[in-house]
C-alpha cells in the first residue's frame, strides 16, 4: 500500500481534488456563460469531501481506492458532473482492481475506460463540446509519448499542452450535449467548462509531478 504507484495515484487524485476546490469561482464563471453557473460549486463541494476524509478511503488496492473515491463524489457532486465524474473514477478503478503497481500502459487503459464510461453515461461523442474533448486528446498524447519511451514527466507535460489546446479548441464547437446545448449556435464562441477543468488538472499534474 505504499508502493511508488500508489503514491503517484494518491498524488493524482489529491491534485484533481485540490484543483477543483481552488478553481471553484473560475469554473463557475465559465459555466455561467451558456450554462447555469454551478459547475465550479458542484465539483468543489464533491472534492472538498475527498480532501476532508482523505485518510478514510479504503486503500486495499489502487482500484478499490479509486472506486471508493468514485462513490464519494457521486454521492456529493450534484448536476451532470456527479454521474459523469463518478462514472469516470468507477470505470478507471474497475481496470485497476487488485493492483498495487501500475504500468504506463495500464494508466492508459484506465483513462480509456474512464472516457468510455463518460460516453456510455452521457451519450456524448467527440466534438459535442464536453470534457471528453480535452480528456481524449490528452490521453492520446500521453499514450503516444509513453509508447515512445519518454519519462513520465515529459509525457505528462506533452499531454497537458494537448489538453490545453484541446480545451481552447472547444470554443469553435457547438454544444450538442448538456445544458449548453439548449443555446444552440449561441454556445459557439466560449470554451466548455468541463474541458477547461480537465486541462487545468493536467496542467497542475504536470507542474507538480516532479516535486510531488
Amino acid at each position: 500500500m505504499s508502493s511508488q504507484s500508489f503514491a503517484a495515484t494518491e498524488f493524482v487524485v489529491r491534485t484533481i481534488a485540490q484543483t477543483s476546490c481552488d478553481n471553484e469561482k473560475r469554473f463557475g464563471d465559465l459555466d455561467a456563460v451558456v450554462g447555469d453557473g454551478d459547475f465550479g460549486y458542484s465539483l468543489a463541494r464533491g472534492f472538498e469531501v475527498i480532501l476532508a476524509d482523505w485518510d478514510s478511503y479504503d486503500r486495499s488496492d489502487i482500484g478499490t481506492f479509486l472506486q471508493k473515491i468514485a462513490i464519494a463524489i457521486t454521492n456529493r457532486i450534484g448536476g451532470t458532473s456527479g454521474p459523469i465524474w463518478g462514472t469516470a473514477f468507477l470505470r478507471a478503478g474497475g481496470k485497476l482492481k487488485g493492483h498495487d503497481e501500475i504500468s504506463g500502459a495500464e494508466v492508459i487503459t484506465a483513462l480509456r475506460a474512464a472516457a468510455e464510461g463518460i460516453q456510455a453515461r452521457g451519450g456524448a461523442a467527440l466534438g459535442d463540446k464536453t470534457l471528453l474533448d480535452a480528456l481524449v486528446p490528452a490521453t492520446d498524447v500521453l499514450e503516444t509519448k509513453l509508447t515512445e519511451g519518454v519519462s513520465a514527466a515529459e509525457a505528462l507535460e506533452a499531454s497537458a499542452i494537448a489538453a490545453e489546446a484541446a480545451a481552447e479548441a472547444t470554443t469553435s464547437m457547438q454544444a450538442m450535449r448538456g445544458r449548453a446545448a439548449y443555446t444552440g449556435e449561441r454556445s459557439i464562441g466560449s470554451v466548455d467548462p468541463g474541458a477547461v477543468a480537465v486541462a487545468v488538472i493536467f496542467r497542475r499534474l504536470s507542474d507538480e509531478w516532479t516535486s510531488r
Partner: protein
Amino acid sequence: MTKMFVNDPKQFVPEFLKGIALANPDTLTYDPRFNLIARADAPRNDKVSIIQGSGSGHEPAHVLVVGKGLLDAACPGDVFSAPPLEYVQEAIKRVASDKGILLIVNNYTGDRLVFDMAQEFAEADGMNIKTIMVNDDVSVQDSTYTVGRRGVAGNFFVIKAVGAAAEEGADLDELVRIGEKVNSVARTIGVGLTAPTPPARGEPLFDLPADEIEVGIGIHGEPGRRRAKIAAANDIVGELLEAVVADLPFSSGDRVAVQVNGLGGTPISELYLVYGIVHERLAELGITVARSYVGNYTTSLDAAGASITLVKVDDEIERLLAAPAEAGVRIF
C-alpha cells in the same frame, strides 16, 4: 456580501429546508442529510409514491409541493444542480410503496443521468419504479439539438394531475399514461428581465443590460431564443404567447389551463397584468380558459421575469387539476 437573507451560502439550501420543516411539523418530515422533504404519512401501500428531484432555487417547486394530492417526496440538489445520486436513492427508500414509485424528472442532462442511475439501482432491488420526463419549454427548438427540450413550469401540471390520480388509487402504469398525456399537451415559454443570483456566487449569473431582456430564458438562467430590448408588456406577452400557441398548436375551440408563473423577483401585480393580456388574446383566438394560475410556481431564485404555460385540457385533465390538494406552499 450578497443582498439576500443568507448565512453561510453553502448552507443556504439546508437552512431554508429546515424552515420549511419547522413551518409544517404535522405534515412534513425532513432529513437534512439528503435534503429530503417527505410527507409525514408516506409511504402508503395503497398509493404510488411520487418523487421529484431537480435542483434548488425553484421554490415553491418542488419541496413546497410535497403534500396531499401532490408529491410524496422531494430531494433537491444544491441551487440549480440536480441532486447527487445518494439523495435520490434515499428518497426512494424513504417513500417506497408496494404500489410503486413514480419519478418525475425535468429534462436536463444532470437530472436524467442521476435519476436513470437511481432507477437502475432500484429496479435491481426489485422495485416497481417508472419515470416521467417533463419537457414543456418551447424556447428551444428541439430539432437542432440531441438533448431535447427543457422541463420548466409545466411540471406543475404533471405533478398536480398524477398527484390527484395517485391519491385516488391509480396504479403506476395509469399514472405514467396520465403524466405523459399532460406533458404532451403542456407548452411553456419564459422571459427574464433580470438574471438570478445564486447565493454561493454572490453576483448575477450573467449580465443583462438595463434595457434588455432574455426571451425564452431557462429556469436556471440559461439563455433562450434571443436578447431583445425591453418593450411594453403587450409586446413581450404577445411574442411569448405566439410561440406557445404555435407550438402545439393550440387552436380555436380548445379549452386550456393557463399559468402565468413568476420567476421569483416579479411582483404578483405584474403577473396579473400579464394574465389579463394572455386571457384577452386567447379569447380573440377562440381559446377558452378553463382554469388559471397566477403566481410563483417554478422560480429562478430572485430573477425578475415570468413564464406562460398553456395546457390543453380534456375532461380527465380538468377533473384532476380541480381535485383538492394541500402542500407546504399555502396562504391561510
